[in-house]
């Protein structure tokens, strides 16, 4: 402790620091303090050193306290305001209570109910069991070609436009039926508009498909233009080959009579690609239509607008064989008439005004 005996031991900065920080042995401390009592200058140095260290420690505490406060503020800013959350929750409970009391949620339907309702709509759109539900569902759910490319809105507009014209052309019964369908579908659409959680696009698609299959459906009464021998060649072949002049003339005459067209125009017609043909026994006809079908002279057909074109279902007293059915063609005569070769018979149909088949695909046949 030679330095401690020095009159200015505080000049030794390391010793001074150790003394102030309390890191010296007690005996050494006693000796140094004894000197401090005598040395005013050394006392001032020690005081100054103590203040310096106290100031550094104060700064240290202050910085930790400041950082802690910042962290707490950040946490407070990110944590939810429970009073606000409680307020919102109370508001929702109140709203639900009032809603239940006033029956706001009575009309809410589940997904299953919605599907059932859609099925019902489709069934409603089908006046008679003309097309199998699977077939119709396939047509509704899988629009392809031009129909798939059309926007839903455009399709709906077009379909509604056609629907407006359809009842005029069809018989009184089919017109009434179509009107009833229109009303019911309007109601369904109105109900749809109020539903929550259903995307607009999906609703439009369903509505358009439903309307397309429902509104543009009409019964046609076909007139048997000619009937040939079972063993005779098909009219199309005859016309194409021009071998049986008599048969061609007979066909042209009948067509002219039916459609009011010139023989040249008829001859220039070709198989219409827009039609999808199917056949059903006439026992499947609804009673009203069955009454209209005069055996041997008329063939009732159900004309349906589908996304891929036009489906025509013919109701026959005896179904065509596969070969006959394969040979079946639809030939368009002008804007408003078609003729079909159904086995040995050539049948003419007058289409409703403004009927314009769209969404053409390759003709498909269905038995």
């Amino acid at each position, binding site marked *: 402790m030679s330095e401690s005996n020095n009159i200015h031991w505080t000049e030794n*900065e390391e010793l001074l620091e150790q003394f102030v*920080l309390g890191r010296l042995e007690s005996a050494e401390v006693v000796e140094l303090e004894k000197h401090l009592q005598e040395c005013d200058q050394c006392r001032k140095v020690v*005081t100054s050193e103590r*203040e*310096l*260290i*106290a*100031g*550094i*420690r*104060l*700064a*240290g*505490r*202050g*910085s*930790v*306290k400041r*950082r*802690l*406060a910042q*962290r*707490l503020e950040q*946490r407070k800013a990110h944590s939810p305001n429970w009073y606000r959350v409680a307020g919102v929750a109370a508001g929702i409970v109140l709203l639900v209570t009032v809603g239940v009391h006033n029956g706001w949620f009575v009309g809410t339907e589940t997904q299953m109910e919605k599907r059932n309702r859609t099925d019902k709509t489709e069934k409603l759109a089908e006046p008679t069991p003309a097309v199998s539900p699977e077939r119709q569902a396939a047509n509704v759910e899988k629009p392809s070609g031009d129909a798939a490319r059309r926007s839903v809105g455009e399709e709906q507009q077009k379909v509604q436009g056609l629907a407006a014209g359809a009842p005029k052309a069809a018989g009184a019964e089919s017109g009434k039926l179509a009107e009833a369908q229109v009303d019911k579908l309007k109601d369904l659409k109105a109900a749809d508009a109020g539903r929550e959680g259903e995307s607009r696009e999906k609703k439009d698609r369903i509505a358009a498909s439903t309307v397309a299959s429902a509104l543009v459906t009409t019964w046609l009464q076909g007139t048997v233009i000619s009937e040939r021998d079972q063993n005779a060649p098909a009219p199309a072949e005859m016309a194409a080959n021009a071998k049986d002049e008599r048969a061609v003339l007979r066909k042209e005459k009948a067509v002219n009579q039916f459609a009011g067209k010139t023989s040249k125009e008829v001859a220039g017609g070709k198989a219409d690609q827009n039609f999808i043909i199917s056949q059903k026994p006439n026992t499947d006809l609804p009673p009203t239509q069955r009454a209209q079908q005069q055996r041997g002279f008329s063939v009732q057909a159900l004309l349906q607008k589908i996304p891929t074109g036009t489906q025509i279902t013919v109701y026959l007293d005896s179904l065509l064989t596969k070969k006959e059915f394969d040979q079946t063609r639809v030939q368009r005569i002008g804007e408003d008439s078609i003729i079909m070769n159904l086995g040995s018979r050539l049948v003419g149909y007058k289409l409703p005004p403004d009927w314009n088949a769209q969404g053409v695909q390759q003709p498909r046949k269905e038995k």
Partner: protein
Amino acid sequence: MKPSLFFLTTDAKTLDLIRKGDEEALVTLYESNRKPIAAYIARNSGTTEDAQDVLQESLVILWERIRNGRFEYRAQLNTFIYATVKNLWSQRLRQKKRLSSGEIDPEAHEDPSPSILDALIATERVEMVRDALETIGEQCRRLLLLFYWEEQSMEEIAVRLGFANADTVKAKKYQCKKALERALSRLQ
């Protein structure tokens, strides 16, 4: 004795975090002690702000003690915090009482005793050192804080601040202390 084991485990984790310098541990301690401390301060004529301030101060003391190795784990950390808050709050209440009675108001006494004046002057100087510390470089500030406040060894400081060895830290500390003294003299 599952609960005590649980607290021991939790406290051990907190102590470890603080020793590593993770200040998030203080936030956790603050949250767990906020309600009882607020209740205590409210019962003793304090406000919510008083409770927040005193709790933060007690956490800083805990931090300081753990960091400089003077903390002895004798009870749960929450118990330590609660006891520190009580001491701090009673000190403040005494201080408020004295101030309201005008005991140490220097302007109320025309001839205040030299000891009181000395204490005030010393307090002022300490605050000046604190302010001066903010004016020196960040590395110097950190080094002086680690050495004088957290009382870390030269070797620890060398690792923390990326110095080559303890001797380098020692030399740097000397320079920083002189820089602080210069800054202090500028403020005075």
